């Protein structure tokens, strides 16, 4: 092959490889500001039943097949859950989540990312998981100092009924 062509081919190959090499790692992408930290609200919580359980009458029990004659009649559906989150007295999140599952008997899932500046913050979180129309069933307040780029998980343990920071 003609040497001039070879040079031309090498130039094209070098240009293509430069393009591949460059875009395989540049331009840099600033995903998260370095002077911020992240609060991740992550709750998986089974709220209370929509209706309280009811005792079946003797007649009702008699109508049921013998293997299903349980005394209490409980609807499995749960109420939606409300969560409010304040940081330094400012509302940063408020939302309702429906219970999961086809018969709405599963846990309500919260997964929220809340970026804040690094430093000390007052965190207040409230959750309503019952059919009440105001007030909250669980509340929690804490002061946390977040390092730059720290990821802090705000969770809830159903067994103890307590919020926690991890």
């Amino acid at each position, binding site marked *: 092959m003609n040497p001039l062509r070879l040079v031309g081919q090498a130039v094209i190959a070098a240009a293509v*490889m430069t393009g*591949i*090499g460059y875009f*395989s790692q540049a331009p840099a992408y600033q995903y998260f500001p370095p002077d911020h930290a992240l609060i991740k609200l992550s709750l998986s919580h089974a709220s209370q039943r929509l209706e309280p359980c009811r005792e079946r009458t003797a007649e009702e029990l008699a109508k049921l097949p013998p293997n299903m004659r349980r005394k209490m009649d409980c609807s499995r559906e749960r109420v939606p859950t409300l969560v409010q989150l304040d940081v330094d007295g400012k509302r940063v999140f408020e939302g309702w989540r429906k219970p*999961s599952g086809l018969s709405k008997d599963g846990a309500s899932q919260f*997964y929220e990312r809340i970026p804040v500046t690094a430093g000390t913050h007052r965190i207040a979180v409230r959750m309503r998981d019952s059919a009440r129309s105001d007030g909250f069933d669980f509340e929690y307040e804490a002061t946390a100092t977040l390092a730059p*780029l720290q990821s802090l998980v705000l969770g809830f343990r159903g067994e103890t009924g307590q919020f926690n920071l991890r």
Partner: protein
Amino acid sequence: MLPRLQYPLKYIFLRLEAWGDALFGSHYNPFYYLGALAWFNFWIVAGTGIYLYVFLDTSVTHAYSSVEYITHEQWYLAGITRSLHRYSSDAMVVLALVHLLREWAMDRYHGPRWFAWFTGIPTLWLLFFCGVSGYWLVWDMLAQYLAIDAMEWLDWVGIFSEPIANNFLTEGSLSDRFFSLLIYIHIFVPLALLFLMWIHLLRIARAETNPPRYLAIGTFAALFALSLVQPAVSHGPADLTKVPSELHLDWFFLGLFPLFDIWGPAALWALTVGGSMLLAVMPFVRRAPKKPAAVVDLANCNGCTRCFADCPFGAVTMVPRTDGLPFEKEAVVNPDLCTGCGICMGACPTTTPFRTKGELSCGIQLPDLDLPTLRNVLDDAVRPLSGKTKVVVFGCEHGAHLPGLRSSEVGVVVLPCTGHLAPSFVDYAFSRAGIDGVVITGCRDGECFHRLGVRWTEERIAGKRDPALRGRVPRDRIRIAWAGPLDLPKLTHTVKTFTEELSRPDSEARAETDRTASVAMTGGAE
């Protein structure tokens, strides 16, 4: 809007490809081997991947350090292998995207080609998925970012009872089991990709999956050089108590992630699913008149299988004889696969215009351009010629626009594909129609709209493929000059000088023999 972009894009490709022809020669022009080069890069990725896997530790805690070992301790082998693995994957993305654009620009995506187009779409998505899953394995800050973003994106659909992004909340929440799952994804998705790449080509006969050796070596050498100059490295180790900040994204694979960060899951789902649907329906909304499929005339078919061998789209099959004639097989055309190129008719040994009119038929032919019609077209093109030298140009609908070449000395026959031309017609032009010279043209070599028309024509005229041009035909009076839509000026010049040469005394025209032969071999318009 799209149709209006198609033509300018075609023009750009044709220009670039002309430069490619000049620089690489038409047999090594990378534009003609985009799919094949993507295949070649797949093999590099697969080979390097197997080697890397030997060193990879599949636990959350040690994956990162094992990749660091690969990169720094054994840089001379595993490190370079890692870089090759990354850059050849990137090359695959570039090649697949340019290939997609080109098939669209060149209008090769509808009709029977819908299948290749349609299956190309999931192929592309699997390719992206391969890349993303590969970046997970390193388990650095980039991997952490990609894993969490991807899981959040999937969680939006809400099919998991608990968000799978919860696997990445804290150091403790990521189990080795979940991490191994990510690794297995990176093994199985590439296998699925290979399978789809194979499906993609099911309806393409003799698909080019191997680039010419020269291009393959050049590609490998270039990737190797890049791997030496800029070795692939990791970000800092993943740390779930930290948020990734500045990321050096591989934009070829990961360009959609920032869009996710800006737009959120719903918009990105709309873009990816919507974009794929749009691509998927494109072949079906394109209103191009379907060309009538080739038709077999059993009385003339002797079951020689040449049409079967030459059809570029696998539309012909050979089945056991049904009409009692003493041949083993007969040809059958599947009209759904047939593009109406006529290459089968050019391949059939019974396609000969020499017979008397009453029985003028052949084994396989296009209904709208069958044997008698084609002979009439040739006769009509020759009849008005009144010049001293008579030349007929055989060409196709997809190359240079030919009718403008007509003059008192030059007649033109436009075929759906030059491969439609049975060599017997060239013989006929000289021996019956009183022609002094024949020019054969069509799409640029390497850029044949019907894929194999150029190749089969060259081989038939050179006597290397049946039906071969008969020995009695004067080869020095044939000129092969491939010319795409942008090459009309060059072709006009070729036809003019050829006509002039022919008009000179016999001896001089014959002196051109060698040159003609070499033009026929390299296939360039002068």
